[in-house]
């Protein structure tokens, strides 16, 4: 049962990776990375059950935390061209597709 779930999540990760490579716009790629992170959390949980290692769930929780922070950081960088000192950067006219 768990191996079925692991194979399904693994295949889903490949599909999302394909979208990550093909994605025309930047936001397709950010969406794909975010979806990939969520699937990794599930995959770690399932493998933790398969291998009988309950401590994998801490890794899965940490991965979920970092995945969210990473997505927001990437979005903030491409929105303001800077992550740290946002107030200083000149406001660029938003026209990139």
């Amino acid at each position, binding site marked *: *049962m*768990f191996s*079925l*779930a692991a194979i*399904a*999540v693994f*295949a*889903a*990760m490949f*599909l*999302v990776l*394909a*979208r990550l490579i*093909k994605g025309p*716009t930047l*936001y*397709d790629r*950010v*969406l*794909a990375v*975010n*979806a990939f992170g*969520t*699937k990794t*959390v*599930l995959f770690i*949980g*399932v493998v933790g*059950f398969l291998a009988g290692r*309950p401590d994998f*769930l*801490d890794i*899965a*929780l940490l991965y*979920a*935390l970092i995945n*969210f922070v990473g*997505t*927001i950081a990437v*979005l903030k960088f*491409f*929105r303001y061209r800077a992550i740290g000192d946002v107030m200083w950067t000149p406001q660029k006219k*938003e*026209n*990139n*597709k």
Partner: protein
Amino acid sequence: MSGWQLFVEILSWVLISAGSFFVLVGAIGVYRFPDFWTRLHAASVSESAGVILMLSGMIIQAGWGLIAVKLLIIGVFLFITGPTSTHAVANAALVSGLRPKNYDDDTSDDPDPA
């Protein structure tokens, strides 16, 4: 295996396979949909239904204990950050000028202009 354990096994099996089905369907949607905005729907399918079903299946499989608590914490956290990150991506795309495919701005034929 007593009747109760059998029920727990079958229920967790059904939940996990349903969850993996939704994860797969969501991923197929993310890959095949034509436009960024439609892919958002597909991504949130696997993020909401897939995550909730699989985690609840694993919680039932794990039974009472610390493992179920950790899975619950992961579930609550993903429940909060899933929509938030999807909103952030959609907002960033909208602000940067990305519009759906056949989106027209003219509201001349608006039946009741606000």
